[in-house]
């Protein structure tokens, strides 16, 4: 039932590392991840796991559990600000959450049966893809002008606020979006991440929503998806309180500071920096996965 995995324990071999030192280091790392995540809009969750596994020698299951709860914290914390702006499409979000929560339950259940090295390899690939997605690219400016039959039946078309008053928009390709959302849920449950990048991709590219609507609706869904995985993680014993504590508090602090200074920051350069960090972590995860350094 429980996988006993022998891991490289770089930091644990050091006699000076006490729980206090370890907790402080984790909190600082999580704070940095939350700060960068908020500033670049890419979310910090994706770097927490490789940080804990690669640099601190934490087992990947515990790392995923801690990362997942920090994803819930940042998503719910940001929701208040997003709701006020009036962009998120609550009906669309709720409909797609059926797909993401089913996906998350499948992914989280799968995570308990995939060996640690397999998880590390999948994680490395997802990191590389995130770095690829984070490059500056033009947002899709193709927006459907005609209502879609399925979207209309499901009452998905809505409006978003502009200085000149609300502007109506249509939602396209609902089945494709739903399928992508299921995939985003599987990834989220399998790896303990928010998979916001895949969600925005589904909303922006497949369903052709206005970009602001995509990002805010995605944020609304991330917390619910993560909560679906969190139940399974909790029962499988992935969520260790002493490890999750500095991760959650650090990420919350970092992302709060990040949201405050967001207006003044030069985000383009930061995104490039963050992309390099992600690529480096991806290579490390892949290396660890293929050499079996995350165990069995």
């Amino acid at each position: 039932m429980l996988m006993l995995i022998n891991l490289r324990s770089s930091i644990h071999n050091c006699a000076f590392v006490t729980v206090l030192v370890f907790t402080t280091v984790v909190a600082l790392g999580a704070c940095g991840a939350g700060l960068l995540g908020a500033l670049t809009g890419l979310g910090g969750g994706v770097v927490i796991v490789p940080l804990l596994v690669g640099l601190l020698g934490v087992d990947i299951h515990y790392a995923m559990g801690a990362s997942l709860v920090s994803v819930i914290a940042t998503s719910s914390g940001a929701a208040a600000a997003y709701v006020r702006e009036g962009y998120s499409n609550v009906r669309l979000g709720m409909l797609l959450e059926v797909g993401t929560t089913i996906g998350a339950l499948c992914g989280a259940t799968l995570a308990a049966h995939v060996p640690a090295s397999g998880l590390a390899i999948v994680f490395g690939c997802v990191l590389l893809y995130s770095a690829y997605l984070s490059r500056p690219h033009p947002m899709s400016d193709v927006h459907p002008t005609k209502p879609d039959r399925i979207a209309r039946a499901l009452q998905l078309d809505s409006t978003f606020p502009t200085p000149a008053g609300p502007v109506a928009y249509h939602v396209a390709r609902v089945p494709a979006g739903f399928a992508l959302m299921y995939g985003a849920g599987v990834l989220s449950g399998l790896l303990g991440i928010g998979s916001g990048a895949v969600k925005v991709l589904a909303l922006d590219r497949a369903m052709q929503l206005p970009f602001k609507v995509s990002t805010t609706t995605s944020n609304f869904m991330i917390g619910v998806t993560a909560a679906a995985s969190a139940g399974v993680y909790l029962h499988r014993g992935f969520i260790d309180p002493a490890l999750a504590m500095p991760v959650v508090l650090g990420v919350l602090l970092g992302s709060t500071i990040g949201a405050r200074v967001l207006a003044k920051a030069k985000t383009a350069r930061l995104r490039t920096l963050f992309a390099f960090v992600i690529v480096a972590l991806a290579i490390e995860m892949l290396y660890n996965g293929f050499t079996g350094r995350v165990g069995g």
Partner: protein
Amino acid sequence: MQVAERDHEAFEVLLGHVLRAGVVLAAIVVAAGGAIFLARHAGESPAYSTFRGEPGDLRSIAGIVSEARTLSGRGVIQLGLLLLIATPIARVFFALVGFGREKNWMYVGISAIVLALLAYSLAGG
């Protein structure tokens, strides 16, 4: 129509505040548990390199509540994390209530499906 729209918006804004309050409350409980934990275990060696899984007491809602009552650091932190997990679930519940107020039964049903999936996961999936 416009009054209904404005009413809906006010409801959404209220929800945003409820969510943020949930996160703040959870963070306070986690921090309090963390303080208890560190006060007792600061000098020990951390052991996360091998996955053993959490003890049974910290895996179920009932177990976590009874652990937290004894004011064990780990139990209190886990209770805070449980509150954190509960916030998006509360969001879905309130959205269901909002759809009910609009008499939008299709979306009351869809919200109920999501809520059922979340409950299934938390109850032991």
